[in-house]
Each structure stands twice: as C-alpha cells, then as structure tokens.
C-alpha cells in the first residue's frame, strides 16, 4: 500500500513538472515604464491591456512612483495592445510585439477634457435661481395637503412640519409672493388642499431685500406657492369637553390666501386653564417677565406646575392677520389680537414672622379673581425697491387688568381691588440705501409707555408721621408712569492674522416720569390725600453712549481674550416734591480678561477675571415700599444709586470623553461685590418693614456647578447636575448688623430607559437650603416618574407620577400628582382624539413651604379636582 502511494506521488510530481513550462507559456509578465517625454517617470498612469477588435479589458496596471508597471499577459490569438491614459497626458496606444522586452513609453502633456456626461433629466423648469414644479405632475390622488406633495419634490424634506430644501431650512414661505404667516407656514402646508395649488417655485439663494440683491447672496432657499384660481380657503377646529365641573375648550382657524391680499382669523374659548393668548406672543422678541408695581394678594405658584392643573379660567381670544400688496414694491401687514379672561385662584397662606421676643402669625384665605383684557395691534409697511429698502413697524398695546380679592386675613374680612391700565407704543425701522455696489444700513427703535395703577385695600393700618398708627377702612394708592426710550447702533468687526477685533457704537436714552400717591378715608365717601410723605413725582433721564471693544488672540491651543466695554451714563433724577435733583455722569466699565487652553480636541480649560464698576437701575428701587397691604411702616424710596464694584475670578472645564460618551462641565467662580446700598428690615409689634438704605454691603461667595451627561448607555440616558453655592452678605435687622451665610446644594438627575416601543423616565432632584441663622436646613425632594408607550403608529399612552416632598426637622410636606393621557390619530378623518385624566388621586391642594431666619411660609394652592377631559381635533 505504501509502495503504491509512493508511485502515485511520483506520478503527480512528474505531471506537475511537465505542465509548468506550459503554464509559464500561457501567462507571461510584460514590464514597462511610462515617461513624460522629459525623462521623468509618470506615476499613477493607467495601463490597460486590450485584444484587437475586442472591447473588454484583459488586464490593467497602474504605474508606481518610478513610472513602472507589470502586466500578466496570457495567450491570445489576436494582436494585443496597451492603452496608457493619464489625467495630465494624452492617451497612447502601444502594440505589444515582444512581451519579454522592457518597454518605455513616452507620453505627451495635454489638458484633460471631460467627455460629454449625460445627466438624467429632471421634471422641472428653471429660470435663473428659480425652479418651478407643477403640482399636477407630482401630486397623487391620495395627497390630502400640500405638505405631502412638497415632500415629493427632489431636494425637499419635511420633518415635524419644518421644510428643508437641500438640507437648508427655508427662509421664506410665500403664497402668491406674500409671506403673511412669517414662519408659521405649517398652518398652510397642513391645511391647504393640493387641488388649490397650481405650482410651487423654489427660490434658490433668495435675498428678500432687493437693495441688497447681488451684494449679499444668501445660500438659502424660499418657497412660493402659486394658486390655481387665486384663492384658497382652509381651516381647522378643536372641540373638547370634560367634567367635573363642566369643562369646555373650542377653537377655530380660517385662512384665506388671495393674490392681492391674505388673511387669517382665529378664535378660541376655554375654561381648562389653557392660555391661547400665548399665541399672540411674538417669538422673535425676548420674553421678559415683570412684576406689576401694584397688585392684589396672591398665592405662590411653583413654576413647574402646569396652569391646567390649578387655574380656573374663562378665556376668550380673537385674532387676525391681514396682508395686502401696495403697488409693485409695497406691502402692508396688519395684526391684531383681543383677549378677555377671568381667572380665579383659591388657596391660603400662613406666614409666621418672628424674632427672639415675638411672633406674628398671619393667616390668609385667598380668593383672588383676576380679569385681564388686552388688545394689541401691529402695523407694518415695507417698501422693497432696488435702490431703497424701508421697513417700519408700529405696535400698540392696550391692557386693562382688574383684580378683586375677597380675602380673610386673621379672621378679618379684607377687600382688595386693583385696576391697571397699560398703554404701549413701540416702533422700529430698518433702512437700506444702495449706491452702485455699496449698501448702507441704519437701524433704530423706540418705545413709549403710559401706565396707571390703582390699588385699594380695606381696611388697612397706616402709620403717618406725627400721628398714631391708625386703621383706615379705605386706602387707595395710585402709580402713574410715563416713559420713552430709543436706541440706535452700528457694529464693526475685523480680523487680521491671529487677532480678532470688534467694535460697537450705540447711543440710547430712556426717560421715566413716576407719580405715586396715597388717599385715605375713615368712611368710604371722601378720600383725603395722605400727604407729602406718600406722594412722589420723579423724572429719571438716562442718556448713554456706548463704545465696546474686544480683542481675541489665538495661538494654536492658547486663546487670550480682552473685552473692554465702556459707557458713560449721563444720569439725572429730579424729585419734584422734595425739590431734590441728582445729576451724575457715571462711567461704567465691565473689563473681562480671559485665557483658555485646549487640552485635547474635546476638552478646554479656561480661566477669567471680570471687573465691573456699574450701578443698579435706580428705577426699580423707587417702586419699593408702596404696597400697603400688610400692617407696615411706609418705606421711602432711597435717593442714592447702588453703585457697586465687583470682582469675579472664574475657572471652567468642558470636556467630552469619546470612549464613554461622557460629557463633563465644571465651573466655579469666586465673586466679591461692594454695594453702596444695604437691606434694612425692621420687625416691631406694629409690623414688619424692609427697605434699602445707604451703607456698605459686601457680598462674597463661591458658586460651583457641574454637569455630567451620559446620553445613552445601552438604551439609557443619564444626566447628573450637582451644584453648590455659598455666599455671605450683611443685612440690618432691627438695628443689628447680621452677617448672613446662605448655602444651597442642588442635585438633579435625569434618567431615561428607552425600550423598543416605550420610554421609562425617572427624574429625581434634591435641594438643600441652609442659612446660618436658621437652626436647621430645608430639604426638598422631587421625584418624577413617566411612562410613554406607543401602542401602534397612531396610538400612544402617557402616564406620569410626581411626588414633591419638603422636610425640615419639624415639618414634612408631601404632594403627589398622577395623570394619564391617551392619544389616537385618525388619518382618514383628518382628526385626533385625546383623552386626559388629570389629578387621578384627587388632591385638593398643592402645598409649598419656604423659610428664612425670621419667616416661615406655608402656601396651599387649590388645584383642580380629578377630571376627565376629551378633545377632538379636526382639519377641513
């Protein structure tokens, strides 16, 4: 057997040896070199082997850096040749006659010409930067709105109602060349039927200001819808009801898009706590919350509570927009909104104000009815010609707010009423003038405000100079303010090498005139002026010239920054009653110098120093002390400005760890501020009073913030935000100077567990507040648990549970809130059903607690009872 195997092996080896020459005859190596005609090798040339009269390639090679190549050539009946090609040289065909011969081929330089490339034609018409698509070509019978049609146009994507063209958000949405909706185009795209539209234009590089055309060519796009009959009407409606008590909610929109003008009309009523008035808020403006100067007693409402949980309202809202073309270049736009509401808040407050000797307890049962009425109107005119662009906007706002409180304070029935009138006129203008290829722009805006507030509190206890403390059944305060402001500005930025420089010039002026007064009566018929101590007539005038500079120097990983904003405030304050006048020229500096170092590509360490010499807005100071609701001594406004000097040293680190997706942000700052005003609080048997008086007050402390984010760890996202603040300040309390140290610790955790069709959320947070004058600290725990489940593509459930706990050594307060929501969409019906069950545990109150070294305060906010609410949304 072994001998047989040996023979077999020898036979195989012999066969292989005999076959080798045959194989080597079939595949031969052809070597060569490609040169550029100047004896320099050509790298990267393509060497392709072809057989005569055959189109497919037999083999190929690409030359190396020495221009060399090697091709394996098999047996061929026909002539064979190589074709040498290169982007910078003309092609060359070379017939191979001797495979074994090393061949050198010279190429001649030649500019490459791209062959004719056939691009698949697309169905659209192009005119300059405008592409037009006809709806009949692209729409389907199943399309119910123009959003579905638009999404079929190449380059357009629509996500959550936002239209993008080639990935860019559109900058304008015109209907027949008019943009009435100003970004609220979803109203049109989701409601206009495709049959009403003839075509859509996509305007690439759209510059809406003609005077800037060709000077500034933005890389964006706009959409213009052309209507079939020049008219399209659309609308939507919402109807909702619930119990108990009876809940109602209804709203409707009606749109009209015509060639010469467009309009939208909107109306809504509800008593479910919804604020449809928010729809009138201009989202371009930064919202600033301001407390009214006079107001009736209220109750603290935690910011995180949804008004639909507690607010009992009866809101009616009407609004409309109208836009009309004027001539070839003009456009006029009108907007108005009208709101009438009737809100009632129930609850109670329990204050305990104390010192070592005495305690005042104040129990308030609050029934607070608030009736805001407002009307606002915007008028805009735009002239958009080739040489001149003008845009002027005029806004007027009229508000009338009435508040009535029938409260019981320490078993004594107390009546309060407030009436506030606010009239505001604001305007701004933008002008662009073009001369050849240069354009000049000037911007400016102004504001005029007229306010009148009257607050009546009965009975009230007032202490008047030279008189004993007296109770008056009728006390009426008034506050009138007239103000106007204007500002104009221009910017300049420049960059050279590693240095960036920026300059800004600005001028502004604001003038306020404030009149306040107090009238008293022992009976409700005749009101007597309370005298000069209760009367104010101030005029504040502030003219400011700003000049800001900033420099940024960057070297590799190092960045140095200096910011030098400087301004001079020509401030004057005239007290017409006491015949006092302050005239001051106040220089204000806000020096900042900073350095940052890029540790690695995803981490930066920075340090900075800020020096500020500034002053507080005196205007706010003069409003303090005129609300005479509580038994108190009347506080006078302080005629001195709070001029302060501040030093801040800061360090921060921001880093991202790609290995673990961990994001870290750490920042810490030490601040040291010397104020020229100090808070003085007095507590006597007659009551409590707080005001600001002249005196040095040093506030210093350290603020530290951290944030750790692990967005997804195997279907889980986590964010942890600890922070700590400690600060000391001085306060005068009953003529004793107290050094107060406040400390707070916040721990905030957000944890989401994402499953295939549901998300489980846990949001616990913890706050610890400690004051050195308090014996014990206050702990606050909030635990939020949410579960969102998507049953089907069009059905989802949402369940949420929140627990709010406040504890001190002596007290423990617990609030629990549970709610449920079912949502189903009916695509055929173009409708949506929402079923909401709120306050499932039927809690009567939401309880809050705050404390200070001399104060404990419980607030009981009445919340809506357990309610079931059903809503249907319908589009037509």
């Amino acid at each position: 057997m072994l001998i047989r195997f040996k023979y077999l092996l020898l036979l195989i080896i012999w066969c292989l040896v005999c076959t080798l020459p045959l194989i080597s005859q079939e595949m031969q190596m052809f070597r060569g070199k490609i040169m550029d005609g100047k004896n320099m090798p050509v790298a990267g040339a393509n060497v392709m082997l072809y057989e005569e009269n055959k189109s497919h390639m037999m083999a190929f090679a690409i030359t190396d850096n020495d221009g060399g190549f090697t091709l394996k050539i098999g047996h061929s009946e026909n002539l064979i040749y190589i074709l040498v090609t290169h982007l910078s040289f003309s092609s060359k065909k070379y017939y191979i006659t001797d495979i074994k011969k090393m061949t050198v081929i010279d190429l001649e330089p030649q500019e490459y010409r791209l062959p004719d490339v056939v691009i698949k034609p697309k169905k659209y018409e192009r005119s300059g930067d405008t592409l037009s698509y006809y709806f009949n070509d692209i729409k389907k019978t199943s399309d119910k709105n123009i959003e579905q049609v638009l999404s079929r146009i190449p380059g357009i994507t629509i996500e959550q109602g936002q239209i993008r063209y080639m990935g860019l958000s559109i900058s304008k949405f015109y209907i027949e060349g008019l943009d009435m909706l100003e970004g609220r185009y979803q109203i049109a795209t989701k409601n206009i039927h495709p049959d009403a539209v003839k075509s859509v234009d996509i305007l690439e590089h759209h510059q809406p200001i003609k005077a800037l055309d060709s000077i500034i060519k933005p890389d964006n796009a706009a959409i213009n819808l052309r209507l079939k009959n020049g008219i399209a009407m659309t609308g939507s409606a919402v109807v909702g009801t619930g119990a108990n008590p009876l809940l109602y909610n209804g709203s409707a929109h009606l749109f009209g898009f015509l060639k010469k003008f467009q309009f939208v009309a909107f109306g809504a009523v509800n008593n479910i706590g919804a604020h449809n008035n928010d729809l009138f808020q201009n989202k371009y403006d930064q919202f600033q919350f301001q407390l009214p100067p006079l107001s009736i007693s209220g109750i603290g409402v935690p910011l995180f509570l949804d008004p639909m949980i507690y607010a009992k309202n009866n809101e009616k809202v009407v609004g409309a927009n109208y836009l009309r073309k004027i001539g070839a270049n003009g456009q006029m736009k009108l907007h108005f909104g009208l709101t009438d509401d009737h809100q009632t808040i129930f609850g109670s407050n329990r204050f305990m104000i104390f010192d070592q000797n005495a305690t005042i307890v104040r129990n308030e049962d609050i029934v607070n009815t608030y009736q805001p009425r407002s009307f606002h109107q915007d008028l805009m005119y735009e002239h958009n010609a080739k040489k001149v662009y003008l845009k002027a906007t005029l806004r007027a706002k009229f508000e009338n707010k009435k508040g009535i409180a029938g409260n019981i304070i320490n078993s004594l029935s107390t009546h309060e009423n407030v009436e506030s009138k606010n009239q505001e006129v604001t305007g701004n203008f933008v002008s662009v003038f073009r001369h050849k290829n240069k354009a000049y722009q000037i911007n400016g805006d102004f504001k005029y405000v007229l306010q009148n507030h009257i607050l009546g509190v009965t009975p009230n206890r007032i202490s008047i100079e030279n008189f004993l403390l007296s109770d008056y059944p009728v006390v009426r305060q008034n506050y009138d303010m007239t103000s106007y402001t204007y500002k104009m500005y221009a910017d300049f930025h420049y960059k050279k090498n590693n240095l960036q420089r920026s300059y800004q010039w600005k001028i502004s002026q604001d003038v306020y005139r404030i009149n306040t007064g107090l009238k008293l009566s022992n009976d409700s018929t005749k009101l007597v002026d309370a005298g000069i101590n209760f009367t104010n007539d101030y005029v504040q005038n502030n003219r400011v010239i700003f000049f800001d500079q900033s420099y940024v120097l960057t070297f590799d990983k190092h960045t140095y920054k200096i910011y030098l904003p400087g301004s001079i405030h020509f401030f004057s304050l005239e007290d017409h009653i006491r015949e006092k006048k302050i005239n001051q020229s106040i220089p204000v500096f806000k020096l900042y110098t900073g350095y940052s170092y890029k540790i690695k590509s995803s981490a930066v360490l920075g340090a900075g120093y800020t020096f500020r010499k500034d002053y507080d807005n005196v205007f706010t100071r003069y409003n303090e002390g005129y609300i005479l609701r509580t038994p108190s001594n009347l506080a006078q406004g302080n005629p001195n400005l709070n001029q302060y000097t501040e030093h801040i040293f800061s360090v921060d680190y921001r880093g991202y760890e790609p290995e673990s997706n961990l994001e870290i942000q750490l920042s810490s700052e030490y601040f040291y501020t010397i104020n020229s005003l100090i808070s003085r609080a007095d507590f006597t048997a007659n009551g409590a009073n707080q005001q600001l008086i002249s005196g040095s007050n040093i506030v210093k402390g350290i603020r530290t913030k951290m944030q750790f984010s692990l967005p997804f760890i195997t279907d889980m996202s986590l964010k942890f935000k600890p922070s700590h603040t400690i600060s000391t300040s001085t306060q005068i309390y009953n003529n004793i100077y107290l050094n107060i140290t406040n400390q707070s610790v916040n721990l905030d955790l957000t944890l989401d567990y994402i499953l295939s069709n549901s998300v489980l959320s846990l949001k616990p947070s913890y706050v610890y507040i400690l004051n050195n004058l308090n014996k014990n600290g206050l702990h606050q725990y909030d635990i939020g648990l949410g579960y969102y489940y998507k049953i089907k593509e069009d059905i989802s459930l949402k369940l949420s549970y929140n627990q709010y706990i406040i504890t001190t050594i002596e007290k423990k307060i617990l609030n629990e809130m549970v709610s449920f929501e079912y949502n189903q969409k009916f695509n055929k019906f173009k409708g949506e059903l929402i079923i909401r069950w709120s306050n499932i545990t039927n809690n009567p109150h939401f309880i809050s607690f705050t404390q200070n070294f001399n104060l404990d305060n419980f607030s009981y906010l009445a919340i809506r009872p357990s309610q079931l609410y059903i809503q249907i949304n319908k589009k037509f």
Partner: protein
Amino acid sequence: MTKYVYFTAILLLTIHNLWSQNRIKEDTIEYKIKYDFIYMNDTIDKVYASPVSFTLFRIRHFSRFLSSAICYNDSIFKHFYDKHPEPVFSSAEVVQKYMEKRALLPPMKGIRSEININKDFNKGLFQSKIPLTFVNKYMEESLVQNWSLTDEVDTIMGLVCSKATTKYGGRKYLAWFTPEIPVMDGPYVFAGLPGLIVRIKDDQDFYIFEATEIQFGRQSMFYDPEIINKYYQKLDRKTFVEDIKKFKNSPYVLGRLNSTAEEKLALKKRFLSRMDLLIEKY
C-alpha cells in the same frame, strides 16, 4: 433663565468654534465628483432610503469622500467667520448681539451620513473616520483592492464603463468604471481601477454609490483638512465595526438629552433604519 440661555449660547458658540471654524481651509482641487449613496433600510421589503449626496475631490496626492452637506456647510462657515469674527462672549448683551448676527447665517444643510474617507495615494492607505459626529476614532487600511475584471461593458451617464469585482469589508462589490476618465479613484474606500468608478454596489444590492455630477479642472474649495489628528484613536477593523454597531443600537446625539420621551423613541427608531452604518463588516 436669562443666565441659563446666556451660558448655553456661550457653550454652543464655543463648541462650534472648537469643532469647525478654525479648521476650514481653502485649497485647489483637481476634480469634484458627486455621488448618490443609496442604501437599503428595510431588507425584508427591500425599501431604500432616499439618496444621500456625497462629494469626492482630489487635492494633490489625497482624495476625500464625504457628505456634500458637510462640504456646503464648511464653505458657509468659512464665508461667515471671515466676515464676522467671533467677539469675546463676556456678557449676555454681546452674546445676544452675536446670536442676532448668527441668525443671518444661512441655514446649514442637514448631514444625513457622516461617512468620511481620506485616501493617500502616495502611501497607498485610506483612513475611515467612525461616521458619527464627535466620535474621534478611525480605521486605517491598505488602499490595495484586488480587482477582477469581467467581460461586461455598459454605458452609464453616456460613458463607456467596464465592470470589475472585488471583495472588501466582508462584502462582494461590483464596480463600473470608465477608462474615459483616467482617474483611479472612486466613491467610499474604492480605488485602484484604471478609470473613475461611476457606479459600485454590493452583490446583495444593500449599498449603491452612483455618480450624479462630474467636474474636472482646478477650482478652489473650502474643506476641513483634519480628518483625524493626534487625539484620534486608531482602531482595528473589529473594534471599528463593533463601536459603530453599539452606537447604532443605542444612539447618542449631542443636545438631545432634554428631548421628550417621544423624540427619544423616534431617534432610536431612526437609527435602527440607519443601515448605512453597517456597511463595514469583519
């Protein structure tokens, strides 16, 4: 609240500055070819995602293949920052003013695929960055692909193309290249054929790259030359593939932390259909 907005704005502006502004350079390119990248996001019903546009361009001995949206955004950033250098963000007012200017910045294009390939023809290597924003990892492999020529000839975009096959990244690919354009380059990591690769797809039709625009001649282009730097981590193929898979199953995008449960769920579902992330195997 104002403070929060202020700090957030500073943070965002700084992050943006770090990641893009200073790195964008202008350079001369030899050619620019646009490709549509089409991938199947439902292999059962054989549904394809809408095409994603990619750009291939050559600078000296390098060529880059990356999303056309990134190319576009880079040029927008470069124009904007040359015109409006960043001031020192030392107060809310300065931030607000600058944000107002930033509002004039034309909207960026959405980046639907972050595939980013750098080919070095001198060294015969390519680098492929993990196709995810803010993930600083990459893979480096040889550019040599063993191509087998076939007899098939076709005409694509009016160009006569030959067909060749190769195996790469655990898949078999079929490529159509045109000797009429003598460039040994192509989409994604593919190169080494004696003509531009006009079309390439895998044999299961999961991934297709198709040329849509071809431009030759020197022209300037804004781009970020730093596909990787010294802080980037080099991975072997297995770790590279596994890291991408891990992300795909548990997606993370900066700034999404405060999104609602519904949005998070939608993000996860969206990434489940991101089959472009699975193009590489080991």
